[in-house]
């Protein structure tokens, strides 16, 4: 059992996450498009490649590295049977995110976030609840263009976060930010596809390893 858990940690890319996407895929899905110069957040400046006609372009080379780290991390969490919660407050993609979560066998929350969900869980849900082990933000802002409350709550409860940060978002409290577009349907479909494939791959690998261990 110990071997099952320590074996993946020895390889830098145990789940071969790098094969899932290329820079060209990201470019075709319009991930590099940011908001206008006036909406730019100060802390996003290192991730921005440049600015053309007032529109910010995100540096896809950095995005590729960040995305690989984030997908690797989610794969490890899914391998160890952790609870992953997809969060997004965009109404257009609410259905897409919920269907992705259902397909993976994980959880989603694309509705109004009640204040004490993470911090007051034992009273809201009942004693003995298990909190999510990873929060995946497909859009860090809520409907009023302010940072989502869940980022702060996850930081308070020591829950790691993975989030797609656009040029107007604050990447501070997110453990694995992914600088990229969060407004186009094509970009979001690509992210959902990538997360779904990593989680399913990780779970399959876990089942295979357990089966191999049992055979021994």
């Amino acid at each position, binding site marked *: 059992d110990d071997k099952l858990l320590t074996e993946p940690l020895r390889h830098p890319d145990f789940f071969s996450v790098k094969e899932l996407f290329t820079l060209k895929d990201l470019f075709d899905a319009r991930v590099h498009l940011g908001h206008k110069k006036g909406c730019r957040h100060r802390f996003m400046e290192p991730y921005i490649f440049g600015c053309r006609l007032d529109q910010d372009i995100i540096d896809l080379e950095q995005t590729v590295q960040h995305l690989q780290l984030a997908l690797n991390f989610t794969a490890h969490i899914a391998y160890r049977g952790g609870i992953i919660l997809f969060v997004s407050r965009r109404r257009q993609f609410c259905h897409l995110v919920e269907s992705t979560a259902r397909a993976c066998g994980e959880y989603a*929350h694309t*509705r109004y976030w009640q204040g004490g969900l993470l911090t007051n869980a034992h*009273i809201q849900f009942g*004693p003995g609840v298990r909190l999510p082990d990873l929060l995946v933000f497909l859009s860090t802002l809520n409907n009023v263009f302010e940072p989502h409350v869940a980022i702060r709550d996850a930081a308070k409860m020591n829950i790691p976060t993975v989030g797609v940060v656009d040029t107007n978002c604050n990447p501070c409290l997110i453990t694995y930010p992914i600088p990229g577009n969060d407004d186009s349907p094509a970009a979001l479909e690509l992210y959902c596809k990538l997360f779904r494939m990593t989680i399913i791959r990780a779970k399959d690998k876990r089942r295979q390893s357990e089966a191999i261990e049992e055979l021994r």
Partner: protein
Amino acid sequence: TLRLICTTTAVQRKNVGASGPEKYTEAFIKKQIEEFNLGRRHLANMMGEDPETFTQEDIDRAIAYLFPSGLFDKQARPLMKHPTEVFPEQRKIQWGEDGRPFHFLFYTGKQSYYSLMHETYEKLLNVQKHQDQLIAEDLPLQKEKRNLAGSRWLTKIELEEMLLEKVSDDDYSRFIQLLQKLVALPCADIEEKYIQKFSKEVPVQMQKVVIEPLQHDERGVAFSTGEGTRKTARATAVVYDNGTGKITVNGIDILHYFPVLQDREQLLFPFQFLGRIGKHDMVCTVSGGGRSAQAGAIRLASAKALRSFVTEKEVEFMRQAGLLTVDPRVKERKKPGQEGPRRKFTWKKR
């Protein structure tokens, strides 16, 4: 609903401790059912009856015999019922042994409501996709109008019962709006089964008032009867055809029974309205009430009787003139602390 603005801290402290009673696990309920069955057999043995055929009524009788209680409230007396009736049907614990919740929307708080919204939205997308396909193939869209008159949507309470969790007013109105949006699309017939889960039939409204046909007496004259009430007076009128306009009340002619002109005018009003003053004879009986009340009662009775002599349009005219409506005004009761129904006692400054 009213929202309390200035509240005490006691009212604001809602979720101290566990929210409501303990949630029962499946194992707990199963154990309770086993204990109940064992107890039932013991009870049957005690009463000397057959354990196999011991019904719930026998249990109730046995308990009432063994534990007699003089308490007034039936629900406070000793009770032995099947655990499914005792423990309210609430959601058992939502997560498995490893801690992972069963439902994928568990962390939202209102999982059944949001999963319902998710499903309904999926149906909407399906219908839109189907519509796009039909447009691409240039086929006509189905335009059979769904009969909205005989059906209503589920009420908020019925939805709460269906979902087993509280639904707020905003959530309910959002759900109804989504359903209406779904129904408004032309190809909504595909999801008819799903929509029928949330719509209920409205029962048929009041039946139309049946107008009785004319009857004929021994001489061959057509007549019809009607009844009327006003305040405490009850009247029955028999209107005969081919008459001379004679009206008899309780065997007395109206000139002698109603000396006042106003009452006689009330009696003649239905005939005058239809223009049949000299054409009908009337014999009525009346009891109770006062002078004016008896006149009003006879007027209503005669109008009801005249319906059989007259076309439907004229019946509608009579109804709009107020000849066929029962006057609901009765004497208002006297209240304590006042001299009459409205009059208060004289106010004295000192």
